[in-house]
């Protein structure tokens, strides 16, 4: 059975290879092939899952060792996989949602002449992401880690003729690279500390080394997670990443890749458990991002950017939960999965809307779309309810647990974190309601564009709606299936050894508080956007609003500090290289030349001056000889 693990990755990889090298002759069938192979991978995943369920909880983990990757003196890196419950969860999420989005893309990318390549990239992504979650050592994980980075680079910049897209892609890759520094340093630390970086040995013996080292490793891992999962301070790329086609946003920048950071932290649970300081930092990062994303989400008029902000904030929840330790890991993952469903659904919905609106993304130009595209409305609505944590829907279960866990952290920390999570829940409800109202309610606000043809909103083809419907199911029931009876908790227990936290206040109180803040958030949004018409041109807005529209000035900061500073640095270095380093050499050459020119003058063509030099020379010779004898 283990041997199937490689196939999980192999199928989409094959797809990528064929589609990218195949050339134009595959244009007609390419998308079907891609989708098929993704589905194959999903089926294999299910098979393995079934097999896994058949086993006892503790020996469910499977290993497959393909071959030794980098065999060097005292350094062993293998191409080897480990499939345990945690990985399994991801496998199913990735392949499942991935397949749906492949299907969706068939319709969405129908009119793009480079559709084949798009599917190639998607397959490449799926393969890389699976490698990431299946690796049994950190270096191989790094491999997948960069692989998804590459796929995301290619897909964000898929419409390369748009400079904005190309720039966004580059930005995403660079910011991720900054995070990667963290990951590689972490791996180096592991190597110098444990002599290896395979999950098994490292995690088992994590306790044996000093807390300082572990904290360092933990923080480095966190840095990596920040890059991948768009956490403060490395979150700036996610908003721009929306330049990519919407299915990409749904799959990579909502459901799967951006959650890799959470996976990394949960995977390294043993290290973090032994390094409380690192954990604290993790929770702080999570909390900050949670609010940051939420605030940004409130201000954006671009529907995808609003959703991106929401993604950021939701991942903030997960990171925070992961930072809480054993009481949080499970819920981090659980929220990750449910979020995978409803956020993917929301994005696909947004995509469907844009599809009907000539790719208009400004919500102020929407309005009243519910009657034009009912299916989209329905699915989007369910996703909406799920994310704001409407009782009974999946978001409710996962988020509520996190909030509980946050309080359960105990002490002031617990209170602060709990408060933050609650506040986050309120804001989430607010901005999601805002999105909902601006898009589907109120009267239509769109006008003909400069070419004069007015958008004719219409429902999307089956290939797009079906995945949306399926995801909607996920958003509705996933939470219940997981949450009721702690199924999910027991499922993951072998990996993350869950311990039940005891919040200072009863779980019931937390839940009701959650619901309450949710209602408040919805109410506020309704007052602002439901009661009175939405202005087509965005009002100037408060200082905070304006800052939030600019991602809370994050980009301005980066630009001022890194871009401008960097440009000056390189310019000056180029100058230094040319005039200083090179100048010294050329200077010496010129010096010798000048000397030569001057000495040359002595050769003035007059015999007598030659004779003088000989005479003088002789005198010197005599003097020197006598002197030598004298001394």
């Amino acid at each position, binding site marked *: 059975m283990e041997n199937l693990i490689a196939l999980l990755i192999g199928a989409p990889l094959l797809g990528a290879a064929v589609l990218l090298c195949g050339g134009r002759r595959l244009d007609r069938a390419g998308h079907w092939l891609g989708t098929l192979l993704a589905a194959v991978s999903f089926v294999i995943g299910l098979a393995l899952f079934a097999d896994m369920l058949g086993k006892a909880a503790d020996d469910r983990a499977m290993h497959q060792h393909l071959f030794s*990757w980098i065999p060097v003196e005292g350094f062993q890196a293998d191409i080897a996989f480990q499939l345990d419950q945690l990985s399994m969860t991801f496998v199913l999420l990735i392949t499942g949602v991935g397949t749906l989005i492949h299907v969706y893309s068939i319709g969405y990318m129908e009119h793009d002449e480079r559709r084949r390549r798009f599917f190639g990239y998607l397959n490449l992504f799926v393969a890389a992401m699976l490698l990431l979650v299946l690796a049994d050592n950190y270096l191989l994980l790094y491999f997948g880690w960069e692989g998804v980075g590459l796929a995301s680079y290619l897909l964000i910049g898929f419409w390369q003729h748009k400079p904005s897209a190309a720039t966004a892609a580059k930005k995403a890759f660079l910011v991720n690279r900054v995070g990667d520094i963290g990951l590689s340093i972490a791996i180096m630390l592991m190597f110098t500390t444990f002599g290896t970086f395979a999950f098994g040995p490292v995690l088992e013996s994590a306790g044996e080394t000093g807390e300082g080292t572990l904290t360092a490793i933990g923080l480095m891992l966190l840095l990596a997670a920040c890059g991948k999962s768009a956490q403060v301070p490395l979150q700036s790329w996610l908003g721009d990443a929306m330049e990519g086609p919407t299915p990409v946003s749904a799959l990579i920048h909502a459901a799967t890749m951006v959650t890799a950071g959470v996976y990394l932290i949960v995977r390294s649970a043993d290290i973090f458990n032994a390094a409380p300081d690192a954990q604290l930092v993790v929770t702080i990062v999570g909390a900050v991002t949670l609010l940051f994303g939420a605030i940004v989400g409130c201000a954006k008029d671009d529907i995808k950017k609003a959703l991106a902000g929401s993604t950021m904030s939701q991942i903030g929840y997960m990171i925070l939960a992961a930072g809480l330790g054993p009481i949080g890991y499970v819920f981090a993952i659980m929220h990750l999965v449910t979020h995978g469903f409803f956020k993917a659904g929301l994005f696909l919905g947004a995509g469907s809307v844009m599809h009907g609106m000539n790719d208009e993304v400004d919500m102020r130009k929407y309005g009243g779309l519910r009657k034009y595209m009912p299916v989209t409305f329905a699915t989007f609505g369910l996703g909406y309810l799920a994310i704001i944590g409407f009782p009974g829907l999946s978001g409710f279960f996962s988020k509520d647990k996190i909030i509980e866990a946050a309080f359960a952290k105990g002490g002031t920390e617990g209170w602060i974190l709990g408060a933050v999570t609650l506040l986050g829940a309120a804001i989430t409800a607010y901005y999601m309601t805002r999105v909902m109202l601006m898009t589907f309610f109120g009267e239509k606000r769109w006008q003909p564009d400069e070419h004069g043809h007015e958008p004719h909103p219409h429902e999307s083809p089956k290939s797009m709606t079906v995945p949306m419907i399926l995801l909607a199911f996920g958003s509705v029931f996933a939470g219940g299936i997981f949450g009721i009876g702690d199924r999910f908790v027991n499922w993951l227990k072998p990996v993350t050894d869950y311990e039940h936290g005891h919040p200072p206040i009863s779980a019931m109180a937390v839940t009701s508080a959650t619901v309450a803040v949710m209602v408040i958030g919805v109410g506020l949004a309704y007052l602002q956007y439901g009661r009175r018409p939405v202005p087509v041109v965005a009002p100037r807005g408060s200082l905070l609003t304006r800052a939030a529209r600019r991602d809370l000035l994050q980009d301005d900061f980066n630009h001022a500090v890194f871009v401008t500073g960097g440009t000056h640095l390189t310019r000056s270095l180029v100058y230094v290289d040319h005039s200083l380093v090179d100048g010294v050499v050329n200077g010496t050459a010129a010096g010798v030349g000048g000397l030569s020119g001057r000495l040359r003058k002595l050769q003035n063509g007059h015999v007598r001056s030659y004779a003088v030099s000989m005479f003088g020379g002789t005198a010197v010779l005599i003097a020197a000889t006598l002197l030598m004898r004298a001394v």
Partner: protein
Amino acid sequence: MSFPLLTATAAVPAVGAILTAAVPAARRTAAKWLALLVSLVTLVLAGIVFARFEPGGDRYQLTESHSWIKDFGVRYELGVDGIGVALIALTALLIPFVILAGWHDADPLETQSKRWRPTQGFFALILMVEAMVILSFEATDVFLFYILFEAMLIPMYFLIGGFGDRAHSGTDENAAAQRSYAAVKFLLYNLVGGLIMLAAVIGLYVVAGNFSLTEIAEARANGSLEMASSTEKWLFLGFFFAFAVKAPLWPLHTWLPNAMGEATAPVAVLITAVVDKVGTFAMLRFCLGLFPEASKWATPAIVVLALISIVYGALVAVGQRDIKRLVAYASISHFGFIILGIFAMTSQGQSGATLYMVNHGISTAALMLVAGFLISRRGSRLIADYGGVQKVAPVLAGTFLIGGLATLSLPGLAPFVSEFLVLVGTFARYPVAGIVATTGIVLAALYVLVLYQRTMTGPVKEEVRSMPDLRPRELAVVTPLIALLLFLGVFPKPLTDVVNPAVRHTMSDVQRTDPQPEVPVQTVEAAK
């Protein structure tokens, strides 16, 4: 005695060079095919060397030894260790692609006199360089190595100065001027380095009385050859200076951008992917092998210089306007990594450095050759003159991107393996240096992606609208290289197998052992 395989490997291209040069002016194409054929035969021979080499065997294998210049204590001594084998393979592997890529670079212009036979000369010189480089990887006699080290400058010099890139901004005159400036700069830098090394070589003779690498190392090991530490330091510096110019190490690097900028892309590849490797190779074999103590003494300074090269090279690369100069500075940064790996003096570092030499050769070749194809289409080296190429020539853009990704050492492509090994190896001994070097991966991403974005993406520029995509010949050049990058990126074992023992020997030369992990957990076997 057995068949002199090593000599043959070097002799074939040498003879081939003479034959190619002899081809009459009219039969230009014949000369090209002859050169290609010869390079392929050499490749086969190199393959045999690779196959015949037993990782478990002696340090130097396939050895040959003949008396040559008794009075100078010079012998014609050949032998290869794993590092030599790997680099010979690299050289023999790249030359056919270089020749194929430069197929039309040396076709004579109408204006030139009929007796002037540039094409024959071009390919003959390339083969001559190949012969000398291969022999220098095989030489186990310091003097023999020195001779080749110096002599290979001459053909390189003519390749750079005689066959400039026809794509240049400005008039032919100042292009010619720049070209000969670049050529002279290349030659003088390396010649000065070589002459300083000559002094050291003579000094070595005075101290040791012969030039046999093995004998000297042995004598040093068993103490029969005492060397005053000051002497050893001076000799080391003499050798290292020459190699650092060749490598090139900051601040001795400025000849490289000129040379690579002015030369045709294939020649640029020859410089950076093949000839410069002799420098790093020699550091590993001669500096560490002959002067272990001095090497350790100099390590801190060298590590610092290497770090400067890494960061500085990358930053300056970001600021370049000329595609080929950008690649040149990128190479400087990479050479920084190689030297860092060598002088970290850990198994990982040195294995990494060796792999790095090979991988950097392949990746730079891929990137540079595609860049050459691009430049030859548009007739300009300036990044600003391009834009949106990806739309009109997707395959070219794709291969260019892969070359770039290899340059920024993306996992899955060969350079990642070596770069990570170097980083780990360095970090294990000098954590701070390791961390500083790690920033290089961000800067690499920066210059590669900026280059790709400015040339390939965005709206299509008028001038490139009619640009054809890669032709079959060009594909034949690029595809194998990329395949190789992927293969070695996932399965470098064939290389590491031959390299590991050599590294073990070097480590014992310098009497250094790897730092042990602070928590000696069960070894990898146990983990599995």
